[in-house]
């Protein structure tokens, strides 16, 4: 067996040192009635080559881009990933190390994550970003819990245009806590209706996603003002990190905490995970942040180096009083994002974001021309909602046969929008792809 290096002789000599007769006897401290004496019922071991065949057959049983033209975003975006980043990310010094508890032999990870934190903070316009969280939904849930800890209040107002699945996660996290979540409705223009805030008191936080689930760009600054007037923390969220290549950053609009998803930054969709929870705050709140943080320091010789820091917030020191239970986070995804941000650069991310915007505008315009209604008229980034005629399900299926996935039906998430679809266009969709979509939905 490739992964078990012991030869029979080695086992024998080691058993002798240990002083037991055979491998089974190593488990003498396991009471007999705790022992499982059968054989696990698992498929017979495959050779590497059988595994290749088996996995290829599973993978071939998937219908994915580029063969399929998938016009779905909704929290998982198709963006190009440079071959250079994929190669670098495969280097086993990064892949096979663990949390850098021993900084002297982990400076590679540590500097890289410090750089990630910095670029993430710059992207979001914040002062401090954590090393990573599981995904956008848990980052946002933790952001809200953080706001509750800081404000010592127990109620949060959450836009109904935050990704519905994120709201479900928040719900799950909040269920046993006794904290309250109030949902803010949305307006006809596809933006959050924050007028209700006026009547709410004791809010720990107001949470808004921008671009929101409908792809519309929220007026963060105005909402931030409103939140601050209520002495609530302003929590911004996002699912499409690339948008900030073009849009004003949440930090510049007054966000106190930002929690969202970084998958767009060089991480493959991979059926939704692993992803990258991004969490950032102002420096003022840094000691309330959940999750790992890398800080800059010096070694005994005065040389620059990096370490995990502010550990007194964390579970391994503070146990039940920690700011979070997180331990293993999504470090390699953060590294992927850092490599991506380093590769696109300031100039590139702007061009790329513009291209996303312009392409999705093209589709929006063509759909309009073709007679479809764009549900909300607020400006969008690379996603928008369109209303298709009733009975569109059949067309949708026909399109699937033509290998086009014509967006995501909003019915399961917003029953009132039952014939509305959320469409996404990134740089990976060509004009030809869009023209084909238009042709097909028209026919």
């Amino acid at each position: 067996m490739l992964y078990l290096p012991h030869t029979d002789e080695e086992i024998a000599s080691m058993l002798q040192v240990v002083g037991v007769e055979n491998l089974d006897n190593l488990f003498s401290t396991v009471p007999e009635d705790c022992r499982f004496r059968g054989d696990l019922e698992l498929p017979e071991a495959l050779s590497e080559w059988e595994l290749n065949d088996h996995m290829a057959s599973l993978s071939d049983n998937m219908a994915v881009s580029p063969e399929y033209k998938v016009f779905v975003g909704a929290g998982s975006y198709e963006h190009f990933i440079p071959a250079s980043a994929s190669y670098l990310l495969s280097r086993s010094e990064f892949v096979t190390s663990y949390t850098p508890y021993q900084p002297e032999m982990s400076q590679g990870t540590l500097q890289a994550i410090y750089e990630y934190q910095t670029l993430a903070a710059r992207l979001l316009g914040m002062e401090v970003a954590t090393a990573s969280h599981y995904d956008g939904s848990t980052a946002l849930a933790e952001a809200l819990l953080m706001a509750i800890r800081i404000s010592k209040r127990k109620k949060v107002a959450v836009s109904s245009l935050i990704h519905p699945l994120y709201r479900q996660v928040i719900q799950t996290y909040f269920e046993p806590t006794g904290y309250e979540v109030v949902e803010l409705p949305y307006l006809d223009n596809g933006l959050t209706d924050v007028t209700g805030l006026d009547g709410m008191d004791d809010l720990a936080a107001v949470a808004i996603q921008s671009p929101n689930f409908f792809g519309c760009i929220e007026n963060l600054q105005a909402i931030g003002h409103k939140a601050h007037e209520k002495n609530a923390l302003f929590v911004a969220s996002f699912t499409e990190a690339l948008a900030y290549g073009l849009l004003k950053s949440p930090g510049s609009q007054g966000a106190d905490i930002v929690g969202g998803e970084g998958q767009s930054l060089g991480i493959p969709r991979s059926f939704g995970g692993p992803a990258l929870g991004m969490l950032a705050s102002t420096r003022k709140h840094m000691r309330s942040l959940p999750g790992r943080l890398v800080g800059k320091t010096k070694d005994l010789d005065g040389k620059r180096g990096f370490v995990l820091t502010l550990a007194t917030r964390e579970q391994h020191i503070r146990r039940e009083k920690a700011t979070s239970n997180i331990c293993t986070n999504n470090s390699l995804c953060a590294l992927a994002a850092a490599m991506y941000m380093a590769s696109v650069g300031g100039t590139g991310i702007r061009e790329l974001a513009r291209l996303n915007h312009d392409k999705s505008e093209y589709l929006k315009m063509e759909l309009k021309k073709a007679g479809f209604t764009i549900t909300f008229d607020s400006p969008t980034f690379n996603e928008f909602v369109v209303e298709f005629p009733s009975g569109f399900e059949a067309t949708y299926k026909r399109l699937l046969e033509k290998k086009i996935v014509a967006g995501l039906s909003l019915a399961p998430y917003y029953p009132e929008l039952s014939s509305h679809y959320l469409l996404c266009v990134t740089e990976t969709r060509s004009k030809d792809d869009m023209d084909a979509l238009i042709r097909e939905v028209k026919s």
Partner: protein
Amino acid sequence: MKQSLGTTGLILNEPLLWEKGKRGRYGFSIPRRDVEPCSLDEGLTGEGPDFPDLSEVDVVRHYTRLSQWNFGVDTGMYPLGSCTMKYSPKTNEKQASLPGFSGAHPLAPTGLSQGALKMMFEFGKYLDEITGMDATTLQPAAGAHGELTGMLIIYAFHKKQGMQRSKIIVPDTAHGTNPASAALCGYRPVPVASNEQGILSVEAIAEIMDEDTAGIMVTNPNTLGLFEENIQKIAEIVHSKGGLVYCDGANLNAVMGVVKMGDIGIDVMQLNLHKTFSTPHGGGGPGSGPVSVKKHLEPFLPVPRVVEENGRYILAEDYPESIGKVSAFYGAFGVIIKAYSYILSMGAENLKKASQLAVLNANYVKEMLKGTLHLPYDRPCMHECVFSDENQAAQKIATIDMAKRLMDYGFHPPTIYFPLVVHGAIMVEPTETESKDDIDQFIEAFKAIVGEAKEDPDILHEAPKSCKVTRLDEVTAARKPCLAG
């Protein structure tokens, strides 16, 4: 002793990303623009982030150099206790990057994703079989996330029983994530001390278990590397008071095919795929922390669940008692592929053998080093063994000094100062993928270091000497945090 494994060689300094680059360089191929520019309200657009502009070669050199300052399992032995730093087979990386997997959209119609759903369905079944539990969710993203999921399930269970409880028993040897996860769920962790044998006594549990206690979180094997021999009796007591038994399964690597947690009174447990099932640790994740439950807790599992219907796989949402969702989508799918590949490569027999050899390796280290280092619990251990620095106290050498010196010898240090019940703990988990040769080298190195502690303790105090940096000032880092450049 033979030539030390550790030595020094040429590596390159490398500035921070933003200390490099020039405005106008490209490290990314901008896709061709095939549509007209289209303006966006100026009020909405910002400056764009202040990222440096680098060329592809700048980026490649940056990370190539950084990687060379790192040490991974592929570099050498990494006996970090409680972390199961086993070798991650390379074929698993290949499988995870198959285009059908890496390119899959989570919200595509399920008809387009049958391969992924089948894989997840089968993988859940495998975990059921290995744990002896009845159903598994793959949604939790790491061990601690699994713990939280487990706590939420326990909470939902008690809620359904009509009475919520306020406490949960957590042994003093528990990993920090256990009390933290319990607290996230609003439970007050009630500590319980392990006995002089390093395990939980039935009496200690009997004493504190009551009807306001939701249950117990046991790590089994525990973080001293010892099997909780009284687990069945403890489970009985907990169950008799209406509580549930949660098992932190992070240490499952010791007992695959040897103990089925479902058979010994466990109601709910998490597995750490990045430990037991060989997925790489990625410098601190991504991991994956599936949660397996017995039948009576199945209704509470997160949604959606993968269900088979006439040979097709669907994502079923209709579980009214479900705790809801703990991840936006279905968990760390890309990690799960690797664990799935691992199980298929190993099969039942090799999984069991892996556990046996993991335990053999740990006991071997324990026997070989127990004269050299103080061994607080001198009993047969499972997959790891815990020493302390007591023998070195006279030389004013602490665990940290030996740990740092190990680096010079070419080894990643063990976990140190955990579990907290052992003062100056040195927790060694070799894992089964270390050969006897590698372990012997480690033992030799440790003995040499203990020798140095007597003869020239300053070598240890000043260690490491071979790494790119010497010991780092963690105190100032925390006092005056500089978290971004």
